[in-house]
């Protein structure tokens, strides 16, 4: 019997008083695409980082290709043929694609030669890329492709990917998964960390599920069901069912958002991102915007949120508007500031403790403590730095702050990105509640499933134009997103 490509057994890892992994295990065969599933904080990223040499386990043997392996650094991992693709790109923005790859792979920096080698590599793998582009200028999907090429150029045979599809449009994600299974199929091994059940079960041949740092399920993807996997992830309860889509739209009232013939400039660059946009959203209605990166949805959201001045056209938005930005770590929150400070900053006049130009921190802290309790956040208290919260709790804070203003309109960009199933369900519940209370919700998501689950109505943005699909249909919407329908 051929030994597995990668085997981790009885892995333990503690950070201070927190146990991240308690006897976790992972076995990946050659030729296999393996999905590692779990909620946020289940330990899946930690396990992957241990295999990739970014963290060291407190205990537990690692074997690569049947031999005992000591992986102390990413360098060790690379020598063993393990390549890691991070969730956030690690390329150097001011170097070209070819230079970045040469740097990682340790090639001689001979411009023409590395260019040729990159073209050859990307052609062979079916991952086309322009070797002369600067890494920093690539769209997110290509940035990720570059990460994969870097790992493979360094002769990785075992590829570890942390949430590789989180940033991709549905079709891009499918394409990537096809390439990865192809790569695994020719005698390599691929591990994908994900929290998307559908994707894991369709792309991977086997799945491992972690919960609280221990394995709760190892199985073949064709015998497991979304139900059995989500039970393993959540511990019994199973996936919280998205409540049946039920519109609270108040048709008798005038729209809360109304755009007509609206043109918006590209955010921060020249050119027009959105042209002739028309859209109205009723109070109580939830409208989802489906779009691939750069289709104008960002500018749409920001124009409605009042952050970008449109070039021309009609833009009527009922106030107050609450905005939930895409990236909670750079825009949603200011991580070095405390929770209470973030709360006051994001709420303006309506913030607790604010009287004119003055802030009473006592009142602000009390109100923040109240929100922490009501939203079930895990936080040391209102004085804790926002940066000390986990991703799910940060997003809860952003949302809690947005909702605390009793907004007439909520604008949200990818409101559940990077959240685990339970936290995402909680975010959806809160948004629905707000809609039931008469708030108009306009949101964008890169996840088609989320769009279908949460929205009352779907609108596709493609090439700067807004269109409404005839049917709520995955395929149709997917094709409209890339301008193929």
């Amino acid at each position, binding site marked *: 019997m051929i030994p597995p490509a990668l085997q981790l057994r009885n892995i333990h890892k503690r950070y201070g008083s927190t146990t991240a992994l308690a006897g976790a295990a992972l076995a990946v065969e050659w030729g296999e695409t393996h999905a590692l599933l779990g909620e946020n904080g289940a330990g899946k990223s930690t396990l992957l980082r241990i295999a990739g040499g970014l963290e060291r386990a407190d205990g537990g043997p690692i074997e690569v290709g049947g031999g005992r392996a000591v992986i102390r650094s990413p360098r060790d991992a690379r020598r063993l043929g393990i390549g890691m693709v991070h969730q956030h790109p690690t390329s150097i923005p001011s170097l070209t694609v070819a230079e970045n790859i040469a740097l990682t792979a340790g090639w001689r920096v001979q411009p023409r030669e590395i260019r040729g080698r990159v073209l050859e590599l990307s052609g062979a793998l079916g991952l086309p890329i322009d070797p002369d582009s600067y890494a920093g200028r690539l769209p997110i999907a290509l940035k990720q492709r570059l990460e994969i090429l870097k790992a493979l150029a360094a002769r990785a045979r075992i590829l570890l990917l942390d949430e590789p599809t989180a940033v991709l449009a549905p079709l891009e994600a499918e394409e990537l998964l096809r390439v990865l299974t192809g790569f695994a199929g020719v005698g390599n091994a691929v591990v994908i960390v994900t929290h998307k059940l559908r994707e894991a079960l369709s792309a991977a041949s086997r799945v491992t599920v972690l919960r609280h740092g221990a394995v709760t399920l190892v199985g073949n993807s064709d015998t497991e069901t979304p139900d059995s996997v989500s039970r393993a992830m959540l511990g019994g309860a199973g996936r919280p069912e998205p409540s049946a889509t039920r519109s609270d739209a108040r048709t008798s009232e005038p729209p809360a958002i109304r755009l007509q013939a609206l043109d918006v400039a590209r*955010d921060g660059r020249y050119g027009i991102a959105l042209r002739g946009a028309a859209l109205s959203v009723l109070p109580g209605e939830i409208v989802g915007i489906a779009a691939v990166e750069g289709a104008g949805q960002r500018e749409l959201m920001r124009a409605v949120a*009042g952050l970008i001045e449109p070039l021309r056209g009609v833009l009527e938005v009922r106030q107050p508007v609450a905005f939930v930005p895409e990236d909670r770590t*750079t825009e949603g929150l200011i991580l070095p500031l405390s929770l209470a400070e973030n709360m*006051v900053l*994001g709420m303006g006049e309506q913030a607790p403790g604010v009287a004119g*130009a003055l*802030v009473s921190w006592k009142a602000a802290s009390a109100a923040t403590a109240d929100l922490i309790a009501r939203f079930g956040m895990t936080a040391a208290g209102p004085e804790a730095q926002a940066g000390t919260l986990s991703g799910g709790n940060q997003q809860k804070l952003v949302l809690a702050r947005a909702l605390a203003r009793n907004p007439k309109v909520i604008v949200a960009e990818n409101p559940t990105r990077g959240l685990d199933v339970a936290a995402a369900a909680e975010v959806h519940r809160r948004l629905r509640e707000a809609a039931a209370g008469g708030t108009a919700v306009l949101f964008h998501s890169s996840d088609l499933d989320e769009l279908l689950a949460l929205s009352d109505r779907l609108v596709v943005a493609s090439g700067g134009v807004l269109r409404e699909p005839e049917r709520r249909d995955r395929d149709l919407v997917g094709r409209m997103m890339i301008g193929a329908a």
Partner: protein
Amino acid sequence: MTDGIELLAGFLAAAVRVATPLLLAATGETISERGGVINLGIEGSMLAGALAAAIGSSAGGPWSGLAAALIAGATLAAVFALVSVHAGADQIIAGTAITLGAVGLTGAVYRAYYGTAGAGLSIPTLAPVEVPVLAEIPLLGAALFAQPLTTYFAVALVPATWWYLFRTRGGLALRAAGESADGARAAGVRVRATRTLAVVAGGALAGLAGATLVLAQVGTFSERMTAGRGFIAIAIVVLGRWHPGGVLVAALFFGAATALQFVFQASGTAVPYQLFLMLPYVLALLGLAGAVGRVRAPRDLGRPERAS
């Protein structure tokens, strides 16, 4: 014995006097850096303020001098803000250019006004204002309560700046802009306007700092008379951990180091006095080396707001 006490009282008074312009400039720079802008041009603003104070005071008395200094310092800072905050130029280079430009500009204006000789320039100055009774306290009285009005102002500015930064919405917006321009923008803060105002306010205070050199200390203007005090103020901001109270302590520390040098010189040792001139700067290096590892600058300090 009386001699010793007198020497000590003189030392303390000198320390506070020397610390005043440093405190003003460093408080201004604290405001600017809390907003995310490091302004090396404050040395230039100080120099411009010093010259403006000299001209203004000759023409209309010390108060006109102070007003002219505020305007001159703020104007240079506004130019810096235009280049660095709005056009997004590198703050270190822009600030250095402003300072070097100010050296040339003040030199040219000074010669145009007073001729190349420049000798015998004597300017109406601010007299010390003694606080009744308190000024009579032995030892500390003269140091704390017989100072020019600018010193009292500089000290009052410390709690005022603290209050602004930590108790007002404007202060929160300013700190947010310094920690994360993107986050502040998403929260509805007008980052560029906020930073511009902070820089201009900082420049005005630097101008005032220059004025105190002329109007409360030297009584005359000479070319390059600020002699790096603006840069020392920037070091004071770091040493004071970007906190108004810390800045006060650090400024007094520098004042004391400089005054100590006067004492050593006056005591007539055989050591060359240039070595004593080094004292504050050596202390600055030591202080920074000890402090820097433990402090955290505003996260977006020195970074222009990105367009998208």
